[in-house]
Each structure stands twice: as structure tokens, then as C-alpha cells.
């Protein structure tokens, strides 16, 4: 091997190893720092009931807000991707795709500001309406928040934040539907929408799943937007429109860490470890699903 090649091979192997080392380092740090909170007597942990009781509502809030965000964002992302790839005139599609990519680059603090300054006040009336008309559903049990800083609004902000990444991945997949199969469907007498159901959606299925999981990963870890928007009281609740909400792990760490000392710090790090594990699993599942798509023989024929 030439010297240049050797240097390059060494550099790239080194970078790969470095990434793994950093990841392992972070995991080790989290485990080591979280351990004192796990073994500490329950009454020394913030909340006074042990680390599990402390983290569980936060984990619940994290999962609830992220899942809700995904529930809102994923169908919308698929619809937007379909519009861009199969309905919009070419120039409009181009512009739209560009805008969606730009949205992905907006810092989350801006979304947080938008959420608290615009979206929260704007949803106060809607919250009241939901309470009056659908109050029998536990999700809308109320009493409705007068500031709009609810779980629903936090989820909406998260949904807007994860929309671009899901849309971008799904759009790429839709674009790759072979023309051959679209024509086969159309030649059978399928309408445009039927053609999409027969070819584009089945082809894009695993991409949709994979992209949703990427979006979920981002929503789980989102900090600032939730910290700014959500009015928190602790506890576990599926009430989406009230002012008492569980917080999320990331937001709690950001808000509480500066004022914490001693075992409280270890407790927050333990929460961080849980979040690390959850996002890790979600991202891995996303990779698995997306990679499986590569083997899909249809794409190459």
C-alpha cells in the first residue's frame, strides 16, 4: 500500500473508533454518575420517594409528548411528501421541497418562542371548546388552561419540529418509486390516487416507518421548545389541555440542573441515562427498518 493510502486508512479507521469511544465514554459517564442516585436512600432523592418514582413521570411526559407529536406529524409529512412528489406542479414542488429543508434548519429555541408567543395564546379558545364538547374523553378532561401552555401545544410544537425530517426522508423514498410500476398501475385503469395506493405507498412503507422513528428520536430529546412551552406540575396525566402536566426528561434536566447539588445531580443524570437508552433504541430500530429497505429487490428491477 502507498503511504498516502495508509495514512488515509488510518485516519478514517481512527475517526470510526473515536466515534465509538465517545459513545462508550458518554454511556460510561452516565452510568457512573447515575449510580449514586440509584443506590441512595429513597428520601434523599428529590421528591423523597426514590429514583424510579422521580423519573417515571418524566419518562411518561417524554413519551406522551413525543408520541403525540409523531401522531400529528407523520400523516402530515406523508401527505406533504405525496403532494410534493405526485401532485404539485414541478416548480412549486421544487420550492416546497426547499422550504421543508429550510424548516429543518430552524433552531429549536425559535420554535419554542413561536410556541409560547403565538401558538399557546392562539389555542386557549380551542382548549375551552374541546373541554366543553369532548370533555368526557379523558384526554380533554380539563380544566382548560388559560395560558395555552398545555401538553397539546407542546406536542404541536414538537410536531412542527419533526415534520421536516420525516417529510424529507419520505419524499426521497416516494421519488424512487420506479416509473415502471406506476405505469403498470395506470395502464390497468388505476386513477392517480389508486396508483399511489398500489405502488408509491407500499414502496415507501419502510421509509415512512424509518423516518417516523427518526422523528420520534428527535422529539424525545427535544429540550428548549418543551421547557419554554409546557406548564409543569409533575405527576402522570394524559390530560392534554390542562395546566398541570408531567414534564419531560430533557426539559427537566435543562431547567433543574443549574440549581441542583449532590444527589439531585445524580438523579438528573439517571434520568438522562434513561433518555439516552430510549433514543438509542428508537434510532437503532429506525436504522434497521431503513436498511431492510435496501435489500428490497423491487427497486432495481
Amino acid at each position: 500500500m502507498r503511504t498516502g493510502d495508509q495514512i488515509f486508512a488510518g485516519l478514517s479507521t481512527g475517526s470510526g473508533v473515536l466515534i465509538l469511544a465517545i459513545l462508550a465514554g458518554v454511556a460510561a459517564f452516565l452510568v457512573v454518575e447515575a449510580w449514586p442516585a440509584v443506590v441512595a436512600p429513597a428520601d434523599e432523592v428529590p421528591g423523597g420517594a426514590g429514583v424510579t418514582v422521580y423519573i417515571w413521570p418524566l419518562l411518561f411526559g417524554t413519551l406522551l409528548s413525543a408520541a403525540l407529536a409523531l401522531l400529528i406529524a407523520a400523516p402530515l409529512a406523508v401527505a406533504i411528501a405525496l403532494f410534493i412528489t405526485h401532485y404539485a406542479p414541478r416548480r412549486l414542488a421544487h420550492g416546497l421541497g426547499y422550504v421543508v429543508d429550510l424548516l429543518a434548519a430552524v433552531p429549536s429555541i425559535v420554535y419554542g418562542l413561536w410556541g409560547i408567543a403565538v401558538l399557546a395564546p392562539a389555542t386557549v379558545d380551542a382548549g375551552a371548546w374541546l373541554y366543553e364538547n369532548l370533555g368526557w374523553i379523558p384526554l380533554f378532561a380539563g380544566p382548560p388552561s388559560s395560558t395555552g401552555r398545555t401538553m397539546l401545544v407542546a406536542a404541536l410544537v414538537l410536531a412542527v419540529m419533526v415534520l421536516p425530517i420525516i417529510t424529507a426522508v419520505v419524499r426521497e423514498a416516494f421519488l424512487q418509486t420506479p416509473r415502471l410500476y406506476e405505469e403498470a398501475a395506470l395502464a390497468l385503469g388505476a386513477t392517480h390516487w389508486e396508483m399511489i395506493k398500489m405502488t408509491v405507498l407500499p414502496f415507501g412503507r419502510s421509509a415512512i416507518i424509518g423516518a417516523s422513528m427518526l422523528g420520534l428520536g428527535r422529539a424525545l430529546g427535544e429540550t428548549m421548545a418543551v421547557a419554554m412551552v409546557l406548564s409543569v406540575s409533575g405527576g402522570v396525566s394524559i390530560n392534554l389541555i390542562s395546566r398541570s402536566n408531567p414534564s419531560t426528561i430533557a426539559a427537566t434536566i435543562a431547567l433543574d440542573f443549574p440549581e441542583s447539588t449532590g444527589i439531585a445531580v445524580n438523579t438528573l443524570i439517571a434520568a438522562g441515562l434513561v433518555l439516552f437508552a430510549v433514543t438509542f433504541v428508537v434510532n437503532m430500530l429506525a436504522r434497521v427498518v431503513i436498511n431492510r429497505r435496501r435489500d428490497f429487490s423491487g427497486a432495481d428491477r
Partner: protein
Amino acid sequence: MAKRIDVADLNIYYGETLAVQDVSMSIEPRSVTALIGPSGCGKSTFLRSLNRMHELIPKARVAGKVMVDGQDLYAPDVDPVAVRSQIGMVFQRPNPFPTMSIYDNVAAGIKLNAKRMRTSELDEIVERSLRQANLWDEVKDRLDKPGTGLSGGQQQRLCIARAIAVRPDVLLMDEPCSALDPISTQKIEDLITELKADYTIVIVTHNMQQAARVSDTTAFFNLRGIGQPGQLVEIGDTATIFSAPANKATEDYISGRFG
């Protein structure tokens, strides 16, 4: 089933470019018509204008008349989706839906047209279509397996089964054997001859022997010159076209001195 086609003064465009100029021809029901001619002369373009697939290409359009049993396909009140369900098409590359089973591939067209149908009835149609396509014996034990697991020739026969399952009036084929080995080609040619009893068939082929073997009528397309639109040079009885063509260019092309 099996309708006649009368094309009158058909001009086919891609945007501003005229690709095929002034084609007029009649295609008899229950016959096989072969379209031959050098590459780029507009055979595929013409074929795709017979089931309104052409206009799916952005800015592509057609001027003139295509009458199927007296009904103009391009009349303003005609729904192109309905046209495509009446006129089946088989493509150059076998394209069974890879996300569907063999059974679902054959049933795809029927499910589009008749939403509600009893399973037994659907089973019957699927079996009948696969039998007609001479594929039943080879796939009857694996109807629930993906269509892409078949050989190229089997896949192409599956595509034919899919096209005839909806009992179209006309069957259009664009070089259906060009991706196949001689044995598969033979099977498809036999199949075309059998299907002629029920369908009006139009087939594009680059294979002169194939045109001579399967078709009753042959139409020779040619480019008027470089950068000029393609046009129909002559059409006639296959035996006549191959033994005593009226046009010099046809004779050159068929004898292999050209194209």
C-alpha cells in the same frame, strides 16, 4: 370484447416536438397487428396513444382521432382512466407489482374496477386468467408468493394474465419478448396466437421473424429524416409486406439492410 380500432390523422407531440406525424390506419378485431420500424421512429409513442398512456408524460399531447368501435377515445367526455381499463397493456420489461403476491397481481385490475366481488368469483377469474396466460400450472401452488420470484418469462406471462383478467377490448404489447430467452419468447408467441381468438392485439417488435410469425397485419414506421417526426410508411397483410412490400424503405428494413 375485441373491438376494431380506426386511427385518423393522428399527430403525437412531446411538448412542441412532433414525434409521430399523420398516422391513419385500421386495426381489425381478433387480429394481431405488428408495428415495426427502426429505433426512435415512434412505435412506442404511437402504441401508448392508443390507451391514452401518452398524455401522462408532462406536456405530451395528441391531435387526431382514435376510434374504438366508433367511439373516439379522445372525445372530451371520455375518461382516460376508463379507456385504460378497457385497453390492456404489456410492457417491454416485465413489471409485476413487487409488493403483491402472484394472486394479487392478477386480481389488481379487477379490484380497481369492481370494488365488491365474492372471493370465489375472484378466485375463478384469477385461475382463468392464469390459465389463458399458460401460467397456471407453474404457479398454482404458490399464488401467495411474490410475483417477482418468478423467472422473467413467467413474470411477463403474469403481466399478460394481469392485463387480460379485466377482459379488455384490446391488448397492446410493447416489445414483450425483448427481455426474454428464446423458449420464453416462444411461449409468449404461442400465447399471442391463442389470445387472438378473443382480443384485438397490437404488438411492437424489433424481431422480423416474430412479426412474420405472429401477426396478420404489419405496419412499418420510419423516420422521414434525422430530427424529423416518425410516420407510417405502409401497412398491409403481413405476408404481402414481407414478400412484396410496396415501399423501398420497407423492403430495405425487412431484409436487414437498414435500421
